[in-house]
């Protein structure tokens, strides 16, 4: 139990690798909305990791700001500018 809850447990490592892969995806996608979808997924994974490491405050803030408000702000920004990266 103690090992599984440490920051180096296999669960946390796997989830971090997943988050890193999605971050790479968000960089390489040319469609900015798809990139913001990937960024939303990163905040989902981050929220799971925080709750797994018993930090519910941080998990809730991440869920509130990362999943909802940031996506909406990205969408409004894309609406006002260009959808595809040149």
């Amino acid at each position, binding site marked *: 139990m103690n090992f599984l809850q440490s920051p180096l447990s296999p669960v946390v490592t796997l989830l971090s690798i997943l988050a890193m892969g999605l971050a790479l995806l968000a960089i390489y996608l040319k469609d900015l909305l798809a990139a913001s979808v990937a960024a939303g997924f990163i905040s989902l994974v981050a929220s799971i990791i925080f709750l797994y490491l018993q930090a519910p*405050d941080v998990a809730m803030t991440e869920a509130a700001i990362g999943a909802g*408000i940031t996506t909406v702000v990205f969408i409004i920004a894309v609406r006002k500018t260009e959808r595809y990266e040149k």
Partner: protein
Amino acid sequence: MNVILALLVVLGLGYFFEFVLRPFPFGMEQLPQVAYLYIRDGLKDNNAANLVTSIVVNYRGFDTLGEVTVLFLAASGVAFLLSMCRCLRPIKRHESSEIIKTSTSYLYPSLIVFGAYIFIHGHLTPGGGFQGGAVIASAVMYMFLAFLDFHPSHSALSVTESLAGLAFVGLGLWGLWAGGSFLANILPKGEWNRIISAGVIPLIYIAIGFKVGSELSALLSDMITSAREKKE
């Protein structure tokens, strides 16, 4: 070539973080002095069920005031920049479906009650002013998404926001006057794990909740309505 360089940088950063972070233990054993005191005395001093709240709002309450101010400055900056911007393209906008409209008119009060629940129980559950404010702003955002001509009253939002800020500073000054330091916890501590406990903390969280909620709502409504400007 670029990829190899990037990989090298990433590996170097990984080594650096491993090297730097390894000495810090994950747990209670060897904390720095102040953190140790916070964790040992936090529950006793403030009688809050949530230790993080007790640290963020009471010991580090002045920092939280700074954070709220930063958010206020960001919202004012966005409003100012958007009022200057004349570079928008005309946007043709469509109605949302009937189902979304109906469901939004039922979700909107429920989400406001949920946000209020989050920030009133800030000292008992992991929530707090910022999260509750974000939920309330999301309720306003649903109304924007569902109804084309939704306009929250801007003056009411700014009045709420200023009053909440005043309440925060006023509570701090009251603590300075009665307890000897800014934001001192002067109210009776109450019974553990009920709503009226932890002295001044729930009041501050209610103030922060109102402030963040109205600020985020005003920010989102600025961004969306400035996209609407060039409709005609």
